């Protein structure tokens, strides 16, 4: 997703990915959507290693979800592979894949949109899409606070490491107790930072219930319109397919079938 694409289209792309993976359930279609989000990521000319690094928690959750489905559905359906009483079954693999593909697609779309769109563009787009200003501001400010909170987190970790804390050592309970040493300062700093920011915003005449303008003019170009038409058509096709009984998880792979 190039930086030249209208931010409203980017936000709608995000919504489109979310809706498509919610409406459709067939693993092959989900794989197709996944490929599409990867292709969009490539087209955005973002650094792939950076994307992988930023989303590592999401990739981990997707992987674990897939594994859990395989474990939970080990006795259902046709076994692809058996090891003793344990089997890797078709429902386990395909249901797990569907969940993982949904997570990865949505996460990838989020990363691409937010990495190619400034906070103000996001806010302007949300405002132009008739999303209420308080909601748009919450999203904008959250995005603005992420790098600052990351820096605060790193500083607090360093401050506590300087007091001989070894966060990686000890049993789970001990580790949890050690984490209190950075969670409390982090929460207090977050409150202080947001309180200061709200003062600064108020002092700059911010009032979520007043009419505001945006100095940034948004205008759809041909590419934007083409993308909107494409997304609308595919979404309508997905709805029609589901109403016609297509695009769902095949019966033989359904969990509990």
């Amino acid at each position: 997703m190039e930086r030249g694409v209208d931010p409203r289209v980017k936000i709608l792309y995000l919504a489109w990915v979310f809706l498509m993976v919610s409406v459709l359930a067939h693993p092959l279609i989900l794989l197709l959507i996944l490929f599409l989000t990867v292709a969009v990521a490539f087209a955005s000319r973002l650094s792939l290693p950076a994307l992988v690094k930023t989303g590592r928690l999401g990739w981990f959750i997707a992987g674990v979800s897939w594994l859990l489905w395989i474990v939970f559905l080990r006795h259902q359906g046709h076994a692809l592979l058996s090891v003793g009483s344990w089997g890797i079954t078709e429902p386990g693999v395909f249901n797990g894949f569907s969940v993982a593909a949904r997570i990865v697609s949505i996460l990838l779309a989020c990363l691409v949109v937010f990495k190619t769109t400034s906070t103000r563009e996001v806010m302007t787009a949300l405002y132009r899409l008739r999303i209420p200003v308080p909601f748009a501001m919450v999203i904008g400010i959250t995005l603005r606070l992420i790098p600052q909170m990351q820096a605060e987190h790193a500083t607090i970790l360093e401050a506590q490491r300087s007091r001989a804390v070894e966060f990686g050592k000890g049993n789970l309970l001990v580790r949890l107790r050690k984490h209190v040493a950075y969670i409390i300062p982090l929460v207090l700093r977050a409150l202080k930072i947001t309180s200061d920011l709200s003062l600064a915003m108020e002092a700059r005449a911010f009032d979520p219930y007043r009419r505001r303008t945006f100095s940034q003019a948004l205008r759809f170009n041909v590419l934007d319109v083409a993308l909107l038409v494409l997304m609308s058509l595919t979404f309508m096709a997905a709805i029609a397919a589901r109403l016609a009984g297509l695009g769902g998880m095949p019966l033989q792979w359904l969990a509990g079938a």
Partner: protein
Amino acid sequence: MQGVDLEIGAGEFIAIAGRAGSGKSTLCYALNGLIPHSFGGRMEGEVMVCGLDTRKTSVPDLARHVGFVLQNAESQLVGLSVEEDTAFGLENIGLPGNEIAGRVHSALRTVRLEGQARSSPWNLSGGQKQRLAIAAALAFQPEMLVLDNPTAELDPVGKQELMATLAQLNRESGVTVVMVNQELEEVLPYASRLVLMDHGRIVRVGNPAEIIDSAEELLNVGVKLPEVTQVAYQLRTREQWRGPLPFRVEDAIGQMRDFVLLTPPEERSSASNATAETLIEMEGASFVYPNGTKVIRNVSLAIRRGEFIALMGPNGAGKTTLAKHFNGLLVPTTGQVLVGGRDTRSSGVAQLAGKVGYVFQNPDHQLFSRTIEEELAFGPKNLGWEKARVESAVESTLEHLGGRQRARDDPYFMGLAERKLVAIASALIMEPEVLVLDEPATGADHEAALRIMNYLSTLQRRGLTIVMVTHDVSLAANYANRVIVVRDGSVALDGRTEEVFRRVTELRSCLVTPPQVTLLAQALNPSLFTCRVSEMVEQLARA
């Protein structure tokens, strides 16, 4: 704040000073309507700003007339580019796009940031960030600018840039400036009136020269005198000064024509307990952050037992990054750092915590316990000390903090100075040989800063080695016996305090301003040198 009566005329430059908690910030919040609209509490009386009653006018409406700038520049950043940030307020009041563009351009030009319009505000220097905050306020085309201690976290160059911008705005555009500032030598050259506050009341308002002349009054309200004022005041107490007390170096020079600066009776050096024993050694150390930014370049230095070192240099020079190598928080990309002869690469931060204590600039990053006692015990417990040893160490450390009765006090509800002292004590309790402190006095008022620095000085006299990262030349001159100046990640100057401060031209090239007293001494006698008020007073005599 109580019983405050104050009238500010159009085009004035008002400086407000007083100790922490005297009501300075509250007064600022009352001027732009945040009080009574955004804070709890009860407001009596009336505040009229530009003909508007702040009680009846909303904060957004007052923002068109009163620009507001907070102490911490980063907490005010809203946009992801300089341009966006400046436009934010104008969008809030619903101005059309073309007018916003014009005003943004004009405001950025005024604060000399027009070339940075597309830059991320996070990449600006401290001084530039504060100038951006001023631009965002100026874009409203306000009649008045209110600034709450905006220079507190800036390096000397950032401070100069900011003060020059404000002076220009006040002089050329007629913008009324109301500024809280603890450093009188920075603000008084520009101020038309000085307001002194104490215990929520205004205790004196008037011409800066007249108020400075009542030095006792300033000292009583916990305000630090400019160094040249201190010199003249001490001479006055010895009945050697007859005229008014100056606050500018130029005025002091003019008034001291009949004084001569004598050669000191003997070559003085900073009080030092330093021994030859090296505790920390850096050999050809360089450090590159993962994003490729090279911050430390081929640094070699040794820190010896008993030294009190001031690590100085402009914002972004690499001082904190360098200091973080001393306790292994960072390890060099090339070269090595040895602590007690051991390479920091092979010893973790936890292992080094018993040798090198590190106190961060903001105690909020460090303190988390509900009582001082628990806070102090945290480090020793992490080091695996036995219970009895931990208890004994907590007992003896509490004595330094005011006695056993403070054990159950909650650090969260203490003032900044107290919290800084608890943070220092919680590092000291681990019995380190070296204590590294990042800006120990920043943000504290004069009395609190003195308390912290005197505590550190006592520790150093008892044999502790101290490394202090600071912008404050006066603190460095008065407490450190060695100064290391860092520029672009390299050591530019390193030597005894007197030797370093003597090299005025090189200091300036490293963006460090020498102490006022040094400039005064050099003007009186270029061949002689001093960097401390007490020494200068000793060396002065009537011609």
